[in-house]
């Protein structure tokens, strides 16, 4: 359905020059980035660089104090979170956002209720993570770390969002599942979903990304394609601590 967008495409998400604070500390000092329709943008950086804060600003959980965020052709600066999300956004937060006192089934029920999708969709998503289906009646707090992560991803996929915002989705997953996730993301990108991906697993991130933004200390240090990044090893050495 979103095929015609591709190519012609503007961006689905454009963040320009946002400044975000936690209390008095000025964390994001003018961050700009873009996710083009049907593409994947990877946001990389060392611990404490401001990646999560950027995502939280976009989703409206820690609103930026200044700057502009345009999502799906709407200026969403200052919007409440649930309104933003209803525009077609799926979010996998850093801490996984699992509800400790809900069973897996209830998690999925709530997600279905919130996004109004059919239960058929549920089966499709569960097929990606068979492990989850084995744990339907466990409480969130009884899941293993990796199972929580899978549930969090599944939940975001469930709503068929136009933009997936993922904060370290591979964290705590077994290598084989990381591959699975990576493949899944590649597949849904094919169907036109756009992705904003924060990852410490640079390998996975770069294999998926169409463009890369690197943050350090709340500022953008690099913005370009994965290929350009590979050709500039000094940048990745300096801001990621590895050469890619």
């Amino acid at each position, binding site marked *: 359905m979103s095929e015609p967008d591709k190519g012609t495409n503007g961006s689905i998400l454009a963040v320009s020059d946002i400044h975000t604070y936690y209390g008095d500390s000025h964390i994001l000092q003018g961050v700009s980035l873009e996710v083009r329709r049907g593409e994947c943008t990877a946001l990389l950086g060392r*611990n404490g660089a401001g990646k*999560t804060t950027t995502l939280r600003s976009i989703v409206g959980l820690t609103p930026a104090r200044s700057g502009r965020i345009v999502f799906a052709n709407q200026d969403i600066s200052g919007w409440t979170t649930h309104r933003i999300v209803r525009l077609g956004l799926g979010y996998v937060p850093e801490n996984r956002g699992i509800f400790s006192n809900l069973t897996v089934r209830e998690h999925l029920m709530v997600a279905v209720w919130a996004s109004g999708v059919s239960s058929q969709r549920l089966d499709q998503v569960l097929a990606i993570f068979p492990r989850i289906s084995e744990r339907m009646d466990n409480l969130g707090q009884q899941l293993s*770390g990796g199972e929580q992560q899978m549930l969090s991803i599944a939940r975001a996929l469930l709503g068929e969002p136009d933009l997936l915002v993922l904060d370290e989705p591979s964290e705590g997953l077994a290598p*084989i*599942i990381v591959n699975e996730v990576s493949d899944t993301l590649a597949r849904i990108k094919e169907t036109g979903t756009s992705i904003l991906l924060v990852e410490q697993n*640079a390998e996975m991130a770069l294999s998926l990304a169409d463009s890369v933004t690197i943050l350090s200390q709340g500022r953008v240090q690099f913005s370009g394609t994965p290929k350009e990044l590979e050709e500039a090893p000094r940048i990745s050495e300096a801001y990621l*601590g590895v050469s890619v």
Partner: protein
Amino acid sequence: MTQQLQINNVTKRFGGLRIIEGFDLELQAGARHAIIGPNGAGKTTLFNMISGWLVPTSGNISIDGKNIAGMSPEKVTEAGLARSFQKNTLFEGLSVLESLRLSIQARSRARFNFLAAASSFKDIIEQACIAAEKMNLQDVLDRQVKTLSYGQKRQLEVAMALACSPKILLLDEPAAGTSPAERTLLMQLLNELPKEMTLLLVEHDMDVVFGVCSQITVLNYGRAVVTGTPEEIRQNEDVRAAYLGKSLDQDGGRHE
């Protein structure tokens, strides 16, 4: 000669669900051992039993020949075992320094002292600083834990376990959430641990596992499938199929 850590035929059930089934493991002092396995295999559950947070349904766990199964966590820690948590379990409202001080103070005789100022125990402060430096946390020493980024919290999680200076150290996914740069630092640190300290590691990052440990046990559905050297594990077809997947095809991965 008795092993430092002995786990014999340990089983754990939750209701009807068998999570760990007849698990055995023996570690000598100074061992570097990893447990890997798919998500939900029971690694964390195993850690919880060893460290006193869960009581095994059956089986024995002993440290230096002393049975610790069913002991409370603090007693196990007193017996010389420390662990980090997969899910951050930190003093969110305290500073990094305070957190580390508490870890170190736990082994000091001062811990029940209510008449002397904590600030007069300079050695504890000094050691807290050292512990922070080891994990590259010195710059955020006086920050409240809740203002740290996720990766920084993960580092503190490990630092606090290390600060207990245990005989046996259990780390549950210490590298998760840390950036490649910090990960290199972590590996370095683990490789420089005191010789006599025993390390039991759960980790999904194979670079760390292969780079630090000399023996690896693979756990699947609560059972130990194989135990072997990194090389053996890497070559094992079953392990590849069930756990490693294709990414290790080109030997060791690309980033290091």
